[in-house]
């Protein structure tokens, strides 16, 4: 669904061919050139831009921007948010995938669609809804004010908005994977008398661990990088309710480009780590498939 495409576990067996099934060489070269130029202009150039401007004014400016108190507090808040949101959504993702893939029940398709909802919704609306619920003039506004509890324009609001936008990631990754695995192994274990948690730790988890890892990593990347939803509920209090992306925006709008890109480069590294894990997980699955196939042929 919008917001994510699940990892592709099909092994790549592409090969250049010749003969009647191949395009003429000039067509091939033109297509490759078009694809490479398109990706270079839109993906690689922005990537280079971030690091170029981050280091343009020197390494000292770079590290000064990262060790500034406001930047550090933004890093702390982002880590705190991710530490709450990622485990919560992981737990939900596993429960949802278990219910949806291992059992039949009416309304299953509706439930699957509802899980996708946060991907289809603008991040700004994701922020707006928590203001409508918890804001001063929202449903619980008067009660919260009376009890002196702050949710929006404070850390709890940031956590809620982040949890909303990252809600489907783990479930989306696990559902197709567990669907493909069927229920035979779990059923066999149950027949042999294994209890629920034993089945989970011994059978389910080993089977899904790489897909789960990728779901968690994607969820984490989005949790740490969410901008729109958090921007609505944060209130932008420097040093208190600014996450890393919000800090980047503030510094950028003050025309401190080197500092903004220095902090942005942290998020770029996070993106690289995410892509590396994705490549690793796909390689793992491709190897698993290949081993299975060769094992069967012997």
């Amino acid at each position, binding site marked *: 669904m919008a917001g994510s495409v699940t990892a592709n576990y099909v092994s790549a067996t592409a090969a250049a061919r010749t003969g009647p099934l191949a395009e003429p060489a000039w067509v091939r070269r033109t297509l490759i050139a*078009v*694809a490479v130029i398109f990706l270079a202009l839109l993906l690689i150039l922005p990537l280079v831009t971030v690091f170029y401007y981050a280091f343009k004014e020197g390494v000292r400016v770079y590290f000064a921007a990262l060790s500034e108190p406001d930047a550090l507090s933004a890093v702390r808040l982002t880590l705190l948010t991710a530490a709450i949101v990622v485990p919560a959504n992981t737990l939900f993702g596993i*429960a949802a995938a278990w219910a949806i893939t291992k059992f039949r029940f009416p309304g299953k398709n509706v439930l699957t669609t509802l899980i996708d909802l946060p991907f289809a919704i603008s991040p700004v609306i994701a922020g707006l809804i928590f203001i409508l619920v918890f804001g001063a003039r929202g449903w619980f506004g008067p009660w919260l004010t009376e009890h002196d509890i702050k949710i929006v324009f404070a850390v709890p609001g940031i956590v809620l908005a982040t949890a909303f936008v990252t809600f489907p990631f783990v479930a989306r990754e696990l559902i197709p994977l567990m669907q493909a695995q069927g229920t035979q192994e779990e059923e066999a274990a149950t027949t042999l008398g294994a209890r629920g948690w034993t089945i989970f730790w011994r059978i389910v988890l080993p089977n899904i661990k790489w897909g789960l890892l990728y779901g968690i990593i994607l969820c984490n990347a989005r949790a740490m990088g969410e901008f729109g939803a958090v921007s609505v509920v944060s209130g932008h209090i420097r040093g208190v309710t600014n996450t890393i992306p919000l800090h980047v925006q503030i510094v950028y709008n003050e025309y401190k480009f080197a500092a903004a890109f220095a902090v942005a480069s942290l998020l770029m590294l996070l993106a690289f780590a995410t892509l590396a894990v994705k490549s690793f997980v796909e390689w793992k699955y491709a190897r698993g498939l290949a081993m299975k196939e060769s094992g069967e042929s012997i």
Partner: protein
Amino acid sequence: MAKGSKKRNILPGFGLSLGYTMLYLGLLVLIPLSSVFFKSFELSFGEFWQIISNERVVASYRLSFATSLIAALINAVFGLAVAWVLVRYRFPGKRLLDALVDLPFALPTAVAGIALTQLYSPKGWIGSLLEPLHIKVAYTPLGIIVALTFIGIPFVVRTVQPVLQELDREIEEAAASLGARRLRVFVQVIFPELLPALITGFALAFARAIGEYGSVVFISGNMPMKTEIAPLLIMTRLEQFDYPGATAIALVMLIVSFVLLLFINYLQWRSGRRAAAA
């Protein structure tokens, strides 16, 4: 498809996992989301209509739709080319390029926003090249299209790629052995197979672009009537504490998102059924 329709499921944990799923979904997503509808019902239809038919609001909807549509079309064309090249050809740096396609998923939108703005501003690397040609990208609708194209790249590539990989080469061989030229094989044999995935990818990119905020706000310049997208207008209304205004604009966007979501799920359900039938 799960099998064993008649036999009783012996696996444990159904009640717990489904109960927890529904509770979490309800508390975090459904109840908060319903607030947009309930808040909108506080407005009379006349008031609601007045808000969303306001000149500035209509301009923002039009801009959001037009730029998202163009960006998704660009992605459909180039995404197909990228998927084709990644599946069918070999060239140096291919694996790296393949991995990089997912960058827009992994990169926070604000970072994409400032990087693209810096590149396309009149003093930037690309902006300074376009300046003599009198083409302005940053702070114009063109800049919004660039940002939306960036965030949409993975959708078309990643939906078309697996279909292309699984495509049966024998049909192509048959067509070729019957004397069909390469272009004709592509148009009449390969393309129809790829079309459902291409439409799904296009719809995903479009749906994402409609709601996008982070990468656009930096490059768009945010001028009312000219470069103000709908999500930004919601933000502006909120900052002015105009909650009914923000909610009404959001409701229209929510309905559009729901329709798109249903359409995409329908497409995926259909292609899933086709795959199962094959």
